[in-house]
Every structure is written in C-alpha cells, then in structure tokens.
C-alpha cells in the first residue's frame, strides 16, 4: 500500500494588495476562532474538559466546543478508533463544513497505540481522512493538547492547513481504503463527488476505480429541488 505523496498545496496569494490584506485578515480570523466538535471517540477525550475550564481555558485562544458537526471546524479523534466507530467518524467528518481540520490525539490514532494488534481498531487514521495534526501520548496532558492546537492555529494562519482539500482531491484513495475496510457497498449520505464538483475542488485523484464501485450501487442523493411538477405525467396508480 503505497501512501501517496501528499503534495503540500500552499494557497496561492492573490495579486492585488487589497485582496491580499483581506485574505490575510480572513486567515487570521480563521485561526483565532476555532470550534471544536464535542465528539469523544476514545479515552483521550477526558483531557479536553480541563483544557476548556478555568485552569487552561481554551476560550482565550478563541476555541469553543460545539455540538453539531455542521458548526464545528476541528474534529478531535481522541483515542483508539474501532472500525465500527470509524464509520461514524467518517460520516461526521463529511458532515463538517470545510475548511475543517482533524487532530489525532493519543498514539492510538498514530499507529494503533497499545491496540496495535487488535483486529478491530484502525491503525493509521490518515488513510481514511486527511489528518492535520497528531498529538502523541497515551492521553497527552492538556498542555500538550493546547500546544498542538496553537501549532494548528499557526499553520492555519500561515495557510498551510488545507489538508481538507486533499479529501476532495484524492477522494478515490480515501474511498478505496474505506471500501477495503467496510466492504464494497459502503456509502455515506454526503455525496462528496457532487460536492467537489460544486465547489470545483476536483483533483486528478478524485475519481478513480473505487468511485466507480461507489457509483454502481449508490442510492440517489441529489437534493429534492422545488418543482411544480405540472409536467410530470399522472403517476399510474
């Protein structure tokens, strides 16, 4: 399994100065206001409450916990990810609005950690979704988590943290891994391919043989558009 070489895609700077200042400001705001998804997959989540509360206070960095994936920017994968949970993690990841970042806390997300032998846990998280940052440690202390978050904020500010585009650009690679794990007729309700087309984030790795497999059995997912339906022929009951 060759892990494809991820070409670091640095955001190209826009020409006129006003736009550049605006982009700079937007990136600054993005870095200074992060919403963490309150989704505790494993044992590492116990480190987050102390990070939020009075002793380490994430809010001074502008980080707030949010409940629904739609509202969140950061998906914290804390602790081992069993295959069953991985399905839900991928669903949640796809439901988040990008630019979105994934932080793998605890060494279990890095290389399986202490469950490295288990048949039930995923070993390498970034096979299934692009991961921005790993914070190693079998439950890293809040300081480590905050340090990791600050590192992520710097990367966002500098514009490097755009691995979320990678999910669209190399969707076929990720889908392949997912199908390898969950079987051929694996499908999430979010239609990534049309989404990529919609936001013109189609890369050369988006469509491949894995996406063909997906096309064959995919249940229709296009949005119910408003129509008067007068043209429809009378349904033959």
């Amino acid at each position: 399994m060759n892990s494809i070489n991820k070409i670091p895609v640095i955001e190209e700077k826009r020409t006129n100065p006003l736009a550049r200042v605006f982009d700079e400001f937007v990136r600054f705001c993005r870095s200074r206001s992060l919403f963490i998804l309150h989704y505790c997959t494993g044992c590492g989540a116990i480190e987050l409450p102390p990070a939020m509360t009075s002793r380490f206070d994430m809010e001074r960095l502008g980080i707030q916990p949010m409940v629904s994936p739609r509202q969140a920017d950061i998906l914290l994968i804390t602790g081992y990810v069993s295959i069953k949970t991985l399905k839900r993690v991928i669903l949640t990841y796809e439901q988040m609005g990008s630019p979105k970042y994934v932080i793998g806390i605890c060494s279990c997300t890095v290389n399986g950690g202490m469950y490295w032998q288990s048949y039930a846990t995923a070993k390498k998280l970034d096979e299934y979704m692009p991961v921005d940052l790993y914070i190693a440690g079998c439950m890293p202390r809040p300081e480590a988590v905050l340090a990791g978050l600050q590192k992520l904020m710097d990367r966002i500010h500098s514009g490097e943290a755009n691995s979320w585009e990678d999910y669209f650009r190399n969707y076929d690679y990720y889908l392949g891994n997912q199908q390898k794990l969950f079987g051929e007729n694996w499908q999430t309700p979010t239609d990534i391919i049309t989404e990529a087309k919609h936001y013109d984030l189609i890369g050369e790795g988006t469509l491949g043989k894995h996406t063909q497999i997906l096309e064959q059995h995919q249940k229709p997912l296009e949005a119910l558009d408003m129509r008067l339906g007068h043209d429809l022929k009378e349904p033959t009951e």
Partner: protein
Amino acid sequence: MTLTPLDELFLYSGITVLVALLLGRRLPAGWMVTILYGIQLLALMKMAPLGYGGEPISSALTFEVMGQSLSWRFDALSWYFALITLGSALLSSWYACGEWEQRFRQSGGNLWLFHLAMTLNVFSMLILLASGDLLSLFIGWELVSWAGFLLMAMAGGVATKAAMRYITYAMAGAMAIFGGIALVYVSAGSLQYEAILTAASQMSTAHLWMLVILFGAGFGIKMGLMPFHLWQAPAYAETPGPGSAFLGAISSRMGLFAILLVLVKLFGIVNIDSLKIPFTLIDARDLLAWIAVFTIIFPTFTAMKQNDARQLLAWHGIGQGGYMLLGLVVADAMGAAGGLLHVFNHATYQAALFMAVTAVIHRTGTADLNKLGGLVVRMPLTFMVLLVGIIGLAGLPPMNGFVSKWLVYRSLLNEGMPLLFVAAVIGTLGTILSVYKLIHNIFLGQLRVEHDNVKEAPWSMMIPMLILTAIIFITGLLPGIPLAWVASVQQAVGLPVPDYTLGGVESASGSLDMIWVIGVLFAGFGIGALIFYFAGGRSKRVHQLDNYAGGHFLTADVRYQYSDNFYAGLMHLIGGWYRGSFLWLEQSVKSLVEFLSLGMQGLYRRANAEFYLLSTALFVIAWVVI
C-alpha cells in the same frame, strides 16, 4: 316599478340560484355559477358610493303582511358585508370548478347540491344584509341558517351529524331572536328601525336587559361566542373544501353583522353601557367584552391540540371572531375600526388557508397533520399561500391581520383595560404557536416516500389562492382602502370614526404607517440577503437524509420527523385545563331533555287514564271555588 341597483343585485342572485337548480347537472355549471357571481359583484360595485359614505339605496320590493310591512334597503354596513360575501363566494366557487370538481364528483360527492347550496347561501345572505326592518332581518336570518345547514349536511356521515348539532343551536338562537322581536314589537309598536330607535331610549333597564340577553345570545350562537361555540369547528371542517372556505370566511360574521345592527345601531352602545349587572361592578358591555376575550383564548388553545388541519383552522375561525366582537365592544374610534377591518382581513386569510389545506388534501388525500411533511419541495406555491395566510392569521406586520389587531390593541390601550389587552395578546401568541404547527407539520420536515411524486395544486385551484394572497398583502401594505369602507360603516352605525390615511391610522397617542413599517422591513430583508449571499461563500443543497443524527446513518424507511404532540411541554402543563371547554354545558342540556322526555312519555303510558280525568276535574273545580 323602477329597478333600483339593489333589485338588480337580487335579480342576478336569484338567476344564479335558478341556474344552479336547473342546469346544475351539466358539467360547465360550475363555471356558469362563477361568472354569475362575478356579475353579482359588478352589480354590487354599481352601489360603490355606499362604501364611501353614500345614501342608503332602498329596494322597490315591499310587502304588507298581517299588518307588518317588510322592506329591504342597502346601506354602508350591508354593502361592506355584501362585498366580503360576494368576494369569498366568487373565489370559492372559482376554486371549486375545474379539477376539484371532477375529483369531488368521482368520489361520489353531489356536485349539483353543492353549487345549489352555495348559491342559496349567497342569496339568503344578501337578503339578510339588505333587511330594512327587524322582521325581514329575522326572515333573512332563518334563510341563512337553513342554507348553511344544507351546505354543511350535504357531505353526509360525520358532516350530517355536525350539521344536526348546528341546526339545533341555530334554532335555539333563532327562537331567542324571535322572542326578542316580539318584545321589541310590543314596546316599540312596530318593527321599523326608526320606531325601535326612538323606543330604545326610554325602555326600562329590565326590558333592555331582556332584549340584550335575547339578541346577544341569538346572534352569539351564530358567531360561535364562548358558551355556544362547540358546533362551529366540526361543522365548518367537515364541509367539502371550497364550502368550508366560504363558510369559514363569512358565514359566522353574519352574527356580527346582526349584533352590529341591533345592539350597536338600534340600542346604541351608550344605553347598553348603562345596564349594570346588579351587585357586580361590570356592566353589559364588559360582559360582552369578557365573552369575546374568552372566545379568543379557549378556541385558540383548543386549535393547538387538533391533529386535523381543517379542524385547527375552524377552531381559529371561532377565536378570531372574538377579536371582532372585542373591537366592537370597546367602541372607541380605533377599536370599532379594528373590529370591522378584522372581518375583512379574516375573510381573506381564512379563505386562503382553507383553500390551501384543501389543495393539500386534493393532492395527498389526507389533512392529518401526523401523516404529512416536507411538501414544500413539491407544492411550493401552496406553501407560499399558506405562509402568507398564517402570517395574516397570526397578525404579523407584513400582512393585513396585523393592522386590525394593532387597532384593537391601541383601543384597549387607550381605554385602559389591562386584563382584556393581556388576554387578547395571549390569544395572538396562541395563534402564532398553532399556525406554526400547521405549516411545520404539512410543509416542513422530511418528505414522505409516498409523497415524492405529488404535484402542485392544479391551476384552476391555484389562481384564486394567488388572488387572495395578493389581496392580503395589498390590504396589509395599504390598509387605507378597506379603512375607507370601515369608516363609512362606522358613520352609518353611529360609531366615532378614526382619521385614517392610506398607510394606516394617525392619532396623537401613537400612529401606524404600514407603508413605512413594511418598507423598512423589506429594506432589512434586503440588507440581510446582501450579507447572507455576498458575505458568505457558496452553499450546496443537500438531500434530506444528509442530516445530523448523532452519527446515525439515516435511511428512507425510518421516519425522521417530529410532528406528533407538537408542543409537548406546553400541553404537559395546560393540557388538562380545558378538556372539553364547555362540552359539559352542552351535555347537561341534552341529558336534561332526555330525562324530561323519559318522564313525559312515562306519563302517557299510564293505564288508568280515567283517574286523570276525574282528578283534574276535581282539582280545577276546587281551585275555582276556593
């Protein structure tokens, strides 16, 4: 005899009835009847100066029966109500013919009887509105209640039961009015309005009390005021589609017309005001006000519990009736204008709402709020009509409902009646809650699999709905137009007239200018849209199953919608308060009659009848001799 405009109106209305009666069987009957309603409306327009303070037009047709003279004439009051009646009749029958008609005939409905009942209703309402004296008022009243009975009972089954209940109430009301007329005839010598007007001033309070109670109860039953409101909701809900739109819009307002005519014009609010209920500090006017307020609150909260869309709307019809009466009873310039304007506004959005719900029934086959959902994507225009309707019903700014409710609130504020003001606001809030349940359960939420290929309502039903929506919005934007008619009505009835402008009402203690308010509102929407569409990035439409469900994979076969027991928290608290809301009153009367009749029939089963004869003879003689 020269044909006055009023006679022309009667003539056309009579022709419509005949057309419906004779040619009703053939298919184009619906269209013919609609066109004739249009002609009637034109004939009414010829009397337009009435709406702007013109002189009353009397009809050439007069009767001389048993020493009573019957005459008919139209004044501003009757012109205003006739305008609403004919308007809703035209739109309802236009809505009826076309695709709805075929579906109704296929499903076994008696289309001929339907059109006949509608035309009879309109004809009898015109006669009632044009009544020149109390006797012709009563004749018109009876005709209206019987025509209403026919329209309600034609759907058979549950509708007939509801109609039976209605007719018992209506007959009780009619008899109360009949008694009142007899008393008035005795004290005033004749039933002409002028004679009554003079006699009213020097009536003894006990006599006036008797009349107020009789007439109030009689007309109140038709209006569905608090203790007598139980018949209205099932009766209006069960009538076939356009029928319920017509009935909901105007039928129970005839009661208000009669109250206005008798209690306000003839007896005058001032002497009603003088009627003190012994050893309580409230007088007749406060009593009417409190009845109106209870009629606002209880039906609105009962509407919230309904699971059938038509029942919900019918219960709201009763609730809104309370506003009209409240406005009238406050009887200062703004209040009366508010009450009367509310009649017009309510007619427009109630008809639109009933039509929208019938369109949904036409397409999906059910009006049960727990079996619908997500229809906005399939029936967008009907959604828009229902949305405008509920904004009007709830009385929110862009639509006309707000203007009339604002006037009622202003008058309550000026007169300094805090409890009434608060109760009216509770009614409005209740309406907002229940109308949201209506639009949410039908149009928002998950679309059911079986409703996937539902089509938009057919054009023959859609056009009248769109016309009504336009009327609602325009009269909301420029309330001056209906206010002009309302002002002339107030003059005719002898109530103080507010100084209105095209945009709203000017007054020292706070005025309303709808053009500015709506202008600013839409400007705000514009800026909001600007921020939303340009400041934010592009957004993508997603399928309804691509939804947050706590990590669960949503599939089409599992229903992911919250519509049953919609306001669980609220119902948990106030659910028990109004279980039957006066149902016990009706049950007690019915059981009393049953019990008595049992006793009476027992009397006739007695074997030894002779004993009766002798005993009565002895008793009578003894009574006479002593």
